[in-house]
């Protein structure tokens, strides 16, 4: 049963716009995902319409709608915003108590967020102005391997061969992959190598300690990233339910908290 009023969060990402609805008790009622495309406003409208339909809730039941993600300031539906660093930390804390380290891998950025035992965010790192270590890198690798991005996980799962991709740069790694294809390396091994490369780049950003929670679209759709993360850091990695919508959940929770404190 939904306890009104409700709070919505919209996470406007580079590839997908995600939304989450929580009720006044903090229960996650529904989530939705649409492609962002070139029109951020239209994507926000679409995802909220979809969200409310899934939740079977009228728009009038929404007390607040807050935004996060790269397009957070542009979304006219939103009355306020939080950064994705804040939203992902809050979202992860709904599923796992602190202290914890959140590793979020999105379409065009990767971030590591450190949260203390009281749930306070105490440090963060984002990737440099570079696509390596993000979903865009995997898109480029899929292109080089002549598969669609959705075909990359099953392709990589067919290999256990370890190939190390040495380049820092997505474009140069693409060139390196082409060279390896000419040398006869199998696409499955190269797909696995692409995931290994993402994990390496992310772990170079910051020392990862304690409980680790992984979120974001790349984590949700590319399980090998999690497998290789666990292998690299030597501890289990928690992937919460709604890993892709965690930012939307977090910012909806922030809206709810702000209303409660007002």
């Amino acid at each position, binding site marked *: 049963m939904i306890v009104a009023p409700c709070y919505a969060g919209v996470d406007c990402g580079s590839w997908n716009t995600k939304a989450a609805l929580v009720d006044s008790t903090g229960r996650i009622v529904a989530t939705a995902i649409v492609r962002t495309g070139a029109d951020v406003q239209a994507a926000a409208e679409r995802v909220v319409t979809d969200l409310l339909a899934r939740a079977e809730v009228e728009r009038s039941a929404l007390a607040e709608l807050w935004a996060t993600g*790269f397009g957070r300031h542009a979304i006219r539906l939103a*009355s*306020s*915003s*939080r*950064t*994705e*660093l*804040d939203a992902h930390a809050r979202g992860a804390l709904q599923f796992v108590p602190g*202290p914890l380290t959140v590793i979020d891998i999105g379409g065009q*950025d990767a971030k590591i967020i450190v949260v*203390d*035992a009281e749930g*306070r*965010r*105490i*440090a*963060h*790192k*984002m990737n*440099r*102005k570079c696509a390596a270590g993000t979903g865009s890198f995997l898109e480029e690798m899929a292109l080089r391997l002549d598969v669609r991005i959705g075909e990359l996980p099953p392709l990589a799962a067919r290999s256990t061969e370890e190939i190390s991709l040495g380049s820092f740069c997505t474009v140069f790694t693409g060139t390196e992959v082409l060279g390896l294809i000419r040398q006869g390396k199998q696409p499955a091994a190269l797909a696995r190598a692409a995931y290994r490369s993402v994990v390496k780049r992310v772990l170079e950003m910051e020392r990862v*300690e*304690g409980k680790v929670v992984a979120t974001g679209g790349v984590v949700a759709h590319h399980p090998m990233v999690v497998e290789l993360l666990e292998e690299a850091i030597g501890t289990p990695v928690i992937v919460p339910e709604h890993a892709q919508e965690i930012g939307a959940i977090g910012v909806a929770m922030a809206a709810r908290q702000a209303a409660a404190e007002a």
Partner: protein
Amino acid sequence: MPPAQREPASPELRSTARLKGLMAAHFAGVDRAARERTAPVAWCTSVGPVELLRALGYEVFFPENHGALLGASRAAGETMGRAHALGYSPDICSYLTSDIGAYLAKKTPLARYGLAAPPRPDLLLFSTNQCREVRDWFEFYGREWKVPVVGVTSFRDVGTVEDHHVDAITRQLEGLVPALEAVAGRRLDARSLEEAVARSRACSDGWRDCLRTSARRPAPLTFFDATIHMGPAVVLRGTAEACDYYLALREELEGHVREGRGTLRRERFRLYWDGMPIWGRLRDLATLFAELETSVVASTYCNSWIFEALDPRDPLRSMARASLELFIARAEEPKQRYLERMVAEFAVDGVIFHDSRTCPNNSNARFGLPRRLRDGAGVPVLVLDGDLNDLRCFSDEQARTNIEAFVEQLEGAGPRASGERARYA
């Protein structure tokens, strides 16, 4: 943050009008000397031994100032490529590549001061206390114009400044004198040097006092304002005009302190900036921080023109010591101690390290210092990737997210300045 909550960027200080006049007069003066041959003209690195030049009657031009103007006017993006094509890597100092590129493209932001080009020097004087690039930069012009390039090859990564360091730099300064005298056509007069050092020290003290007003809450001067008001400390060090300017600016700032007027109506957080300014984004960043009701109250960069060792009773040795005590010339350990002092003196809630892609010498995030400062002083830190002039190395959106997230982090951490310190496991 919705627009309704936004704060305006800091209002201009009354002294700004005087500053503009002073800078315009400086550029016009050097230009006139170069064109009419009324005085010898030297180019000098920004923290080089300018007092020797003042004492010998040179008019002095500072190419780093020109580089900053190219960055602030966003002309650098158009000029750097010319230098890259000449073999100067995009990975080296973008002041150098902006400036040499501007020379090749025959462009200058000094046009708004009525100058067709930077004034042509009779001599170039460098000190590598800040980096080696300045030497290569000056040697380009030395070859181009067939004029002498002289300088000091300094120590770098200095731990404790020892007498043997000072002795060595003093000897180099003494060794410069004949070349400087030959171009000036006159002998160095001991009294003139003492007076130049005394004026530099007075300028330095005045500038330091201005900067220290922002130790008060609310801060009357932000880092972004200070990058503009430091102009005379850079280009007029060793002159009476610079000393007078900082007396007037200090009076204005102290007036603001007495009245409790800061640059922001509400100063929620106070930050320290380490590293170079991002010249092409000064206004945008100032506005962003103002929107976040956060004041960047102090910086290593603006402090770099404080030379407390200067002493007219011992001019050359004190110049040597002052050049060695500069933050940029120091090793990691004294840098950390310095930043800890600044954190305490200015009661800041956080420290931003600008990791400037083409300026490794003034980027202090590359050997673990942010983490050590965070753990040692208990102060939150943020590393921003960017560059002094090459905006291709800077992402507006990513910087905005990083800064907003840092302020959100401070909101959740509680008021540090009242004594509460975030703890790091």
